[in-house]
């Protein structure tokens, strides 16, 4: 167990940026808007989080700034996809390119700088619990916040009135509209909040994990989060599982190499992707009844009140 423990600790640590991005995207997609610009938003979040920590002198200021910048990008996406009703896939790809390019351009002067960043902080008492204490409660507050977020989202989506309204806007906007719900407003709100969470995932990379800024530093984690949403079948708890699994496999293969094991690393590295493909196959084969129920029925389809079929 002593040798396995660091793997689990590292799995949670390296899964956290993916988890934030996945949770953000679940929120947005549940409301019926698809945002494929995660990679770009994460990068903008990483840069703004780093820059604000540097100038504001506190990692918390950085994280708040990252959320705000992400929310602004979400607002742009919401305007394009909800108000203008443009193709959400194209808008998302454009956001990825914009975020990558803009963060690179604006980040030139931050290259080579470091910040103290957010240090880990063990929760008193429960961090002393055997195994679980080390894995889950000896991390940093962003990790603890993500735990809370997972359960909060579970509760919110399925047990509260606003959560049901959110799902209604994503499943059947016409019915939601007939009920008197402001579909466009709901979609705006959760696209903005979702993008903010995605940006927090990016900021975790530059403020907590690596305490510096490097161009393109999320290295594809945004795309992994896009796949992770489907892997998790839009369930926050499963998103946590998937994110930690992904982080775990990555660290597991690195530690296997350090232990001198002769397992072909590329084989292990493709495992999470393989599992995502399997889940996708499962969904498209139509066998997973529960899966198709979880998917927002009106995902990516613009809604116009005046339109009649």
């Amino acid at each position, binding site marked *: 167990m002593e040798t396995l423990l*660091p793997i689990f600790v*590292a799995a949670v640590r*390296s899964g956290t*940026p993916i988890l934030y991005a996945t949770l953000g995207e679940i929120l947005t997609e549940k409301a019926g808007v698809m945002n494929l610009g995660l990679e770009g938003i994460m990068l903008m979040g990483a840069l703004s989080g780093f820059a604000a920590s540097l100038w504001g002198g506190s990692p918390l200021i950085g994280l708040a700034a990252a959320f705000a910048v992400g929310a602004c990008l979400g607002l742009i996406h919401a305007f394009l996809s909800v108000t203008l009703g443009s193709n959400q896939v194209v808008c998302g790809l454009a956001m990825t390119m914009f975020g990558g390019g803009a963060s*690179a351009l604006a*980040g*030139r002067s931050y*290259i*080579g*700088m*470091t910040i103290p960043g957010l240090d880990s902080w063990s929760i008193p008492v429960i961090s002393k619990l055997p195994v679980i204490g080390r894995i889950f409660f000896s991390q940093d507050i962003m990790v603890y916040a993500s735990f809370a977020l997972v359960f909060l989202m579970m509760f919110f989506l399925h047990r509260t009135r606003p959560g049901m309204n959110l799902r209604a806007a994503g499943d059947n906007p016409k019915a939601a509209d007939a009920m008197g719900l402001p579909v466009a407003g709901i979609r705006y709100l959760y696209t903005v909040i979702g993008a903010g969470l995605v940006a927090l995932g990016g900021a975790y*990379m530059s403020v907590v*994990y*690596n*305490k*510096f800024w*490097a*161009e*393109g*530093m999320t*290295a594809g*984690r945004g795309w992994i989060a896009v796949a992770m949403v489907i892997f998790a079948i839009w369930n926050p708890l499963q998103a946590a599982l998937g994110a930690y699994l992904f982080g775990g496999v*990555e*660290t597991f293969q*690195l*530690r296997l*190499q*350090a*232990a*001198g094991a*002769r397992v*072909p*690393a*590329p084989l292990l*590295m493709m495992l999470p992707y393989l599992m995502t493909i399997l889940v996708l196959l499962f969904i498209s084969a139509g066998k997973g009844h529960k899966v198709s129920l979880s998917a927002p029925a009106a995902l990516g389809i613009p809604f116009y009140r005046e339109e009649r079929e």
Partner: protein
Amino acid sequence: MKKSVLHVLFVFFVFFSFFAFSIAVNAAPIPVAEINPGYVYIGPVGDGGWTYMQDEGRRAVDAAFPGLKSTIVESVGEGPESVPVMERLIRQNKSKLIFAGSFGYMDYVEEVAKKYPDTIFMHVSGYKRADNVGTMFGRMYQPRYLSGLVAGKVTQSGNIGYVAAHPIPEVIRMINAFTLGVRKTNPGATVKVIWLFSWFDPGKEKEAAKALIDSGCDVLAMHADTGAVAQAAEEAKTYVIGYNNDMSQYAPTMHLTAPIWDWEKLFSPIVKQVADGTWKSEAIWWGMKEGAVDLAPFGPAVPEDVRKLVAAEKADIISGKQAVFTGPIKDQSGTVKIKQGETMSDDDIWSMGWFVEGVLGEVPK
């Protein structure tokens, strides 16, 4: 009769020497303002490593040649997409000289060079040359070896970790040179290698460094593009040797030194030759003697005797008294690959695909 033969020979000689001369100097002098060098980069200038250092070199060259107007293209993939990039540099920016900054451009440089015989191409780290294509690289294994001497002296446990990007000859050569240095000052020490299978992923680089630290390594070396390994080492109070540029800002107390590039020393003479019309296609592989590669300043943790030892070895490498890959060198199985007193040829060094004794880990097939 004999005299007339001599006359004919003389005429032939003059004619051919003129011909040969005109080939050797196939480029007429080009005014500096018309060279417009184009730089094709593999990564973003903001990577803080490989591409960042190339661009530092370019800036220095621009400053050294007033009137020189250079153009860069960043993040150009090592595939057919590099062809239109180079063609655009030639057509729109009127580039007479192109620096292609990564190995994978090789075949595409060859292709474009055939189409534009009046443009001079310098390909970094490749081996295919033509009348208008030269190759250039630095003998980074020299400072790598020197940094190995430092690591061998500083380690307490004898376990040294090495975070490596991709299993290609360049990276393998570096690991070998480093290990030779380590074993010279510490014959019992070993170098444990972790492959990232990626040049650029700060998250993964940091995680690999932590894995090595957890497995008992007390000095880390790295061959990847960011400062993540140095930062992980600083946080765990483990000594670290950077790469590409001085990485001491990421590990102020634990940074020992770093093998670093000085691309200006490579780019600048080429621009000068093109301007003078003396450029010719050759394989440039410059080392510490020419200043193309060097060691970053030592960190506070490096003891005085180690500094002296490295300075002496460096002087021997620069004067040519000593080569890094000199026998006896054994491979991992203990078989002697280079006999006592023999020195590896440049071709063999260039294409190294095996590990020397003392490396833990394997070259993935």
